[in-house]
């Protein structure tokens, strides 16, 4: 019995064919950012998300089921001070607030000693004095320069289109801090840190903080990332209520300005005609037409899977054959315990730090771990970072108390000796043993629930994070700046008419910066002739005036 014959149409659904001004593929931080700006500029936008929930890397979900929420991907928001969206949108309306604690990172060592990295410089310096007066003094001096590089150049440049390296070099010559930055850029992270600091523990903390988001410590030509990432490491903020709140706020900005968001909707194909995009097709058979399609996915997904190699212009033959995915991904162990981890160390402030690093006794340990990861293996001498999320956010606990939610996260290879199915369980035991060693209360009596997330799992949740790549592509000189993802596409537009890129594989890269999304919004708005309702931030203005005015 076909009910339709008997009852007629029962309820209406989203039509099979619809027309839009712009379609955005992927509702991660960048896709949402682009969408929010364009919708408010009057474009009719449709944002298409494959998962059942928007957010991409901004996910706060009940993965410790039942009752306990965790920020499974991004938790540390490091660009809140620079992100133009904070000034441009009325985020208060959506009850968005960030917590940026002074005690940012604590590092604990086997001998019970510890180090702190803090938002306010002098607390870090005080802590370094325990190990080396020379390093402490050097840090105090250096970090002032690096903070300036960040606020004057690197921060604002995150939200402006990339500039060809030659032009950038010329521009930066204009100021002293610019020239210093150019010098820094020539060097490898390892070289930079070991040349400025002598103590092995201090080196370990700084090297880990600078490279933890995916820099190769021995790569030259990426040195500007050291001040960038170290200052970011001092500026980690927690979005109160969970990372997903930011996604929700941006999504609501899209909706209130007439946009539409489809979830559980996978784009299977970007339609093109005569070298121009005409819209997208969804897995479920729906078609959305538009002259502008903006993809936040990795280059393989966008160009090979969705457009198709045969539809690419000649110039793009093999453009992304050699695209390198991230050298390392993450293995994360999420836990629910009765008590929060209590680290056994000489400084009680470590227990109030946003992030706690352990497993490394010196910078060689840090490097050795990464070498292992790059070789596809892990040995017992691994290290990583942990956060007790519920310490910062009571909203994550929705079950009987006492209960605390924490995670430990470490760099791990996508392809691992023995395979993740087997390795994940073993590693869980090793992580717990190591955790208990530094925080004795993290024992079996205390821990009530665990959930391990491997690099393969990251890719299953978000297939655009290929090989578990959290930035949709490695940070190497050939994949950074004007070269990200390549010269033709790094300014958001592409050789295919109406196709734009707005995700982490574009300049300025991964993480919750909103940079690629903001830059794409600007470019699309200009090309579509939309009135820009927003203005650059004062820092961006000053940067433009100083270096390009």
């Amino acid at each position, binding site marked *: 019995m076909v*009910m339709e014959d008997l009852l007629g149409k029962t309820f209406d659904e989203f039509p099979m064919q619809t027309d839009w001004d712009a379609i955005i593929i992927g509702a991660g931080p960048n896709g949402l950012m682009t969408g929010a700006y364009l919708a408010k500029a009057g474009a009719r936008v449709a944002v298409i998300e494959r998962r059942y929930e928007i957010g991409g890397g901004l996910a706060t979900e009940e*993965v410790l089921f039942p009752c306990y*929420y965790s920020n499974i991907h991004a938790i540390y928001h490091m660009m809140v001070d620079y992100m133009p969206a904070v000034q441009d949108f009325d985020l208060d309306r959506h009850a968005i607030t960030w917590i940026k604690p002074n005690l940012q990172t604590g590092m604990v060592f086997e001998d019970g000693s510890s180090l702190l990295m803090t938002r306010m410089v002098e607390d870090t310096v005080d802590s370094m004095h325990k190990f080396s007066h020379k390093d402490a003094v050097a840090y105090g001096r250096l970090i002032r320069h690096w903070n300036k590089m960040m606020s004057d150049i690197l921060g604002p440049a995150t939200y402006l289109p990339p500039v060809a390296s030659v032009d950038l070099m010329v521009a930066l010559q204009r100021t002293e801090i610019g020239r210093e930055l150019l010098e820094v850029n020539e060097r490898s992270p390892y070289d930079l840190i070991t040349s400025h600091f002598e103590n092995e523990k201090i080196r370990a903390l700084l090297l880990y903080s600078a490279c933890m988001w995916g820099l190769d410590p021995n790569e030259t030509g990426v040195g500007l990332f050291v001040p960038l990432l170290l200052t970011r490491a001092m500026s980690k903020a927690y979005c109160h209520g969970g990372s997903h709140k930011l996604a*929700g706020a941006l999504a609501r900005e899209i909706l209130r300005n007439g946009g539409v968001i489809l979830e*559980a909707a996978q784009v299977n194909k970007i339609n093109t005609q005569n070298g121009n995009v005409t819209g997208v097709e969804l897995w479920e058979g729906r078609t959305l037409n538009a002259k502008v399609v903006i993809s936040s996915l990795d280059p393989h997904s966008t160009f090979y899977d969705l457009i198709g190699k045969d539809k690419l212009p000649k110039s793009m033959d093999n453009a992304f054959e050699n695209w390198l995915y991230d050298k390392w991904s993450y293995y994360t162990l999420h836990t629910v315990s009765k008590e929060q981890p209590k680290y056994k160390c000489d400084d009680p402030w470590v227990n109030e730090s946003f992030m706690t690093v352990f497993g490394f006794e010196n910078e060689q340990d840090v490097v050795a771990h990464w070498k292992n990861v790059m070789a596809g293996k892990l040995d017992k001498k691994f290290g990583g970072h942990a956060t007790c999320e519920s310490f910062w956010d009571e*909203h994550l606990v929705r079950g009987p108390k006492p209960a605390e939610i924490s995670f430990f996260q470490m760099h791990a290879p996508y392809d691992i000796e023995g395979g993740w199915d087997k390795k994940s369980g073993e590693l869980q035991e090793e992580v717990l043993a190591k955790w208990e060693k530094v925080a004795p209360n993290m024992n079996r009596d205390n821990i009530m629930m665990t959930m391990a997330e491997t690099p393969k799992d990251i890719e299953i949740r978000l297939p655009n994070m290929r090989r578990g790549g959290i930035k949709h592509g490695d940070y190497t000189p050939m994949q950074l700046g004007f070269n990200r993802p390549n010269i033709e596409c790094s300014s958001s537009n592409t050789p295919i008419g109406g196709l734009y890129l707005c995700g982490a594989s574009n300049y300025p890269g991964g993480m919750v910066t909103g940079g690629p999304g903001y830059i794409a919004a600007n470019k699309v708005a200009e090309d579509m002739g939309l009135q820009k309702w927003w203005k650059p931030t004062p820092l961006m203005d000053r940067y433009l005036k100083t270096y390009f005015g």
Partner: protein
Amino acid sequence: MNKEEKFDFVIVGGGPNGVTLAAYLSKCGASVCVLEERPEAGGGCENTEPIAGVRINPHAMFLYGGAAPGFDQLELWRYGFRGQPNRLGDLTEDVGRGCPTTSGNYPISDIDQMGYAKVSGLLGQPPFIRELLRATFWCPPHPPEVEVTAHNIPYMQVYKKHQPDVWSEELLEMDMFDLMDEYLDTEPFKVQQAVISWYSGAAGHWKGVAIPAWMCNVALVIYSRMTVPRGGMHDYFHAVMRCAVAHGTVVRTCCKVEEIMINDGVAVGVRMADTATCGEKKIWAKKAVISGVDVRQTFNKLVGPQHVDRGLLQKVNDISLKGGSIYVSHILSREPLKVKDKFPGMVGGCYPMDHRDIYYDHVADVDGRKGNPSIPPERAMWLSTPYERFDWSDPQVSRPEGHIMSPIYHLVPPPEYHVDGPDAMNKWKDGMWDYVVKSMSEVYTNLNSDNVIAHWANSPYDSTFRNTGLIGGTWCGTRHCDDQWGERRPIPELARYRTPIDGLYLCNQTACHPGGLFLMAIPYNLMHIMIEDGLVEPGEWWYPSPWYIPEQGKNPAKRQ
């Protein structure tokens, strides 16, 4: 930081009912703020992915509300609402399969089919099933001055008009079994219908609610055809929330409300918990505060005993939670679960349907003895979704290996009535898992440790924590029995969504007719009342229920 914020309406709780009301009110042009305490709005309609690539449905699963006026009044299609076809909805297959009993599938007779079709309004010319459903769910209770009789109860009027031979005074005395004994034929088919109804709101054994119980069943099985919205019930919820936001509603998550502020007997706003993720914790309501959270919390905590008389509070605390607390299991298995040969073609559903004695045994166990199951697992009743990848049509189920069965339901006592204390089921989770496996292994051959990759369970106790509104961890919040239905839901004094406090209205499944399920019915019904009170004026898109009777001395919610 926002200072002195004022909205026309402040809604406490971002569950399906609160947010649907927000969509209605903001579509009328009002300014609306919704405050939700969890990291995600949606209440009982939620999804989660406890391991990568495996999406489970902790609570709601199926669309029951296909007949809701909300689909066209709120134009949900615009905001991305999509359904998805599914094998359970194929009625021909369903009818051919029969009902699973301990001795195998038992055929459904022609009389069963004709009787079922008749009471469901399918035999009218044209069929009047939609009218019947709307009359049952989408009409506010009659005002207190109206005497409720077999002549003016909306669904009775529909039978009278379209199928007069079904109409009788006695219909109002019956339970669903009585009704089925009159119209149906085989015992297993009857038991199956009663079980579906029990799991859907109004149970088959409650006197006086035969038709409401029947309609819970029909809403799912016939009218909404076992539709699972694309992306699950949560994404259906999202379509409603997006409609609200598109019309200007402000939704704030992680903002728990602690107090409904009352000034001279009038609700004037709310105060949030200190932990709320915003600066100023007070929000003022110019026109009304609406409580979208459970009725107990509303009066005991948010309003507080200082503003309610003890008699009313007693009645509120006596409201029965029985009748739908569910222990929910989710299984990820390597191979699809295989049924025994005696159940050809079975794709989930409920078991065992032999005889109503089994059903009554469960009533005795769950609501009488109020303890952990004492029925042997071989006779335990359960209801499940198909054993294939439930979302086989959805690339969201993207784990390379594995098949999901989620959710699987076993009825248990509400935690706060449990004889061994509210956490008794939680302490017994391992035992319950064995029980679940044993009970399901009556049908499935390969539910064993080799095959099961992972399993999860959320007990009603968990539900009351995860979701404060789900008191009793029930489908329906509070029993849909005759004492708590229609003009008596949740208690006569509160039946028309108004409260003794001016400017405070109720909009939650536990507090309002027609109770549980995401039907968009409570907000639609409440709209009539808010129009009566002159709080909103909807545009051309609004139409009231044809059976609605305006209260004397108020603005009728009808077009002049």
